[in-house]
């Protein structure tokens, strides 16, 4: 009898669903589903829609027909598009160099010990925290053609005798938006690089100092190589963000004067959303994609090489 009772004591067979989730591959898949759905809805779907739109002659409210690569051909021959491409590279290149140089300098300073360190570090982030549109409006007023506070200041310091036409002159307008982008981007570089600096063991620097390495040598042979992987990631993010920048130019110049400061994003917006030529707008904004894709590939390969080394 006793034997029979032990036979009855059998664990209940688990239901199929539970068994599936016990399999790590299925569990991983189930856990990934929400992310995949979100990425699909907000990244892949708009991207594919954008591609489909760019090969039609669709306008606002008119679905349009398939026209192949006609829109790409059209923008290829478009002078304003050429200006936008040139501007985007110039804007991204110049701002990235300045943001990296100033950000690194700031990070090195913030990495030192001084009174009010925590407060200063928090304060540095301010340009990054304020909503871009608001801070850009403040800059727009500072560069205002008539009431520029900068002109007022320079005039009263006897540096200028007439007004500087910040946003009305194509070159000065480009410089103005570059200044604002650098101002806004430096904190991101500074804080990210500061985090990178703090992972570098101080002993390395101390040992080098004992061996007679001067500060400049310690920076080039110890700090910089160890900081490089972080720097590359920060630069990568910044390039992508800057390349696709919209807010600063839209608020400051709207792409003007006479289309002189358009970037990919602002020109795509003017054509697609402003004028309602959706397919052309999509083609302009997609023209960014291969370039950004290349930047990402090159930088990721570089980062992998650095990490393997």
């Amino acid at each position, binding site marked *: 009898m006793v034997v029979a009772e032990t036979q009855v004591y059998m664990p209940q067979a688990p239901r199929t669903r539970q068994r599936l989730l016990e399999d790590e591959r299925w569990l991983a898949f189930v856990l990934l589903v*929400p992310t995949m759905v979100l990425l699909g809805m907000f990244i892949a779907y708009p991207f594919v829609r954008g591609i489909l739109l760019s090969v039609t002659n669709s306008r*606002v*409210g008119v679905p349009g027909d398939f026209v192949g690569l006609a829109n790409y051909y059209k923008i290829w021959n478009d002078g304003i598009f050429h200006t936008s491409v040139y501007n985007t590279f110039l804007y991204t290149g110049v701002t990235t160099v300045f943001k990296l140089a100033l950000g690194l300098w700031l990070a090195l300073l913030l990495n030192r010990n001084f009174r009010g360190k925590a407060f200063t570090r928090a304060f540095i982030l301010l340009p990054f925290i304020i909503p871009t549109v608001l801070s850009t409006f403040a800059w727009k007023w500072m560069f205002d053609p008539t009431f520029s506070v900068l002109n007022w200041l320079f005039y009263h310091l006897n540096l200028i005798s007439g007004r500087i*036409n910040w946003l*009305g002159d194509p070159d000065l307008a480009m410089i103005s938006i570059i200044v604002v982008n650098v101002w806004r981007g430096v904190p991101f570089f500074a804080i990210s690089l500061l985090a990178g600096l703090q992972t570098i063991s101080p002993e390395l620097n101390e040992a080098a100092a004992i061996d007679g390495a001067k500060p400049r040598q310690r920076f080039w042979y110890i700090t910089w190589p160890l900081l490089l992987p972080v720097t590359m990631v920060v630069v990568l993010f910044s390039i992508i963000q800057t390349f696709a920048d919209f807010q600063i130019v839209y608020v400051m110049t*709207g792409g003007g*004067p006479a289309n002189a400061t358009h970037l990919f994003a602002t020109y795509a917006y003017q054509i697609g959303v402003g004028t309602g030529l959706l397919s052309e707008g999509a083609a302009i904004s997609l023209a960014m994609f291969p370039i950004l894709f290349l930047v990402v590939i090159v930088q990721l390969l570089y980062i992998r090489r650095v990490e393997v080394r």
Partner: protein
Amino acid sequence: MMKVTRRNVLKSSTALVGGMAGILATGRAPAFAQGTTVHWLRWNDFVPASDTLLRREMLPEAEKALGVKINFETVNANDLQPRITSAIQSGSGPDLIMLNNNHPQLYAASCVDMTDVVEPLAKAEGAHYALVQANSNDGKKWISMPWAIIGGMIAYRKSWFEEAGASSFPDTWEKYREVGKALKAKGRPIGQTLGHTFGDAPTFAYPYLWSWGGKEVDESGKVVINSKETVDSVKFMTGFWKDAHDEGGLAWDDTNNNRAFLSQTISATLNGASIYIESLRNPDRYISEKGAQLKTDILHAALPKGPAGQFSMHTYHSHVLPTYSKNAKAAKDFLRWAHSKPVYEKWFVSQKGFATPCTPEWEKHKVWTEDPVMEPYKIAGRLARTPGFAGPADAKAAEVLSKYIVTDMYAKAAQGMPAEDAVKWAESELKKIYV
């Protein structure tokens, strides 16, 4: 407080994902159950008192009279086009959208026929001005309901012009340039935007082009902008800009010249009457350098004559009713109510002449006799041409206007591009549109 469990989070995210999938599948934003609401989108009026009047008095009256709720929203006029594009594409948004000039032509395929609202009104008030018909009618039907014309005239400082030797406003571009040169030398330049902005930029650039005999296209739609007349106009503009204008104007929108004039840094500017009206509303805030109220030193004049004559283009406002609207009947009823004489008159009077109604009937209104400074605006509707002249003000002309091609032609020359190249650039842009 609800306990956040994994089960709850999963449930809500599933619902969210399901909901989003539904929106994507139908291509429509969710509609929430409610009583009839008419969502009315307009610009931020340059006469703010009119928006206040609408919000505080007129719309509550409309709600009572029509039994619907009116959701009144105002935005910067330069944002109206992006708003209608996104509304039409997403299939949801305001029921009535104000648009500038011939922009309704760009959205004609997605807007409700307004003939049944426009024609009874035209029967009662008399036919609309030609410019109204050209902008709002596509030849078959009314695609938008005419609202008002914002007359564009040059507001100028009478005493400063007299000091520069002009006892009356210069009637030709040459004379205007001479006076402007003298004024700029005294630090009182002419202010004119050549930026990407809806009103003051095209209402200057287009009539200026026409006054020299230049035009975008001929009657058959052939691009004819690259002509001797256009090149002459651009050449003159280059010197005129340097000699007489505030060069910051390349970066101005429609508000900058108001601020510059009221702060007395410019002597003249093409504008609606909003500068003068603001000086009337706050007489003690704006005082001239001689201690007089600024309003006593402002006069209005039409743009000067060129070799081919004297022309004008006024900013024109009308309302479209997109086909996605579920409240088309209520929206049309609201427009009928808003255009009924006593209601519209209340709004028109609050504008003090800034807006000119769309039929000649209103030229007799006492608003025009109350203040002689405003009188030039009375007949704004009679004399204006529309974008795309000598062709129709159709969708192609609206695309040229939306891309600011004519304005940019002058802006490029003002920035130093040779006149011939600036005209060639405009020609190539126009040819992409008029294919």
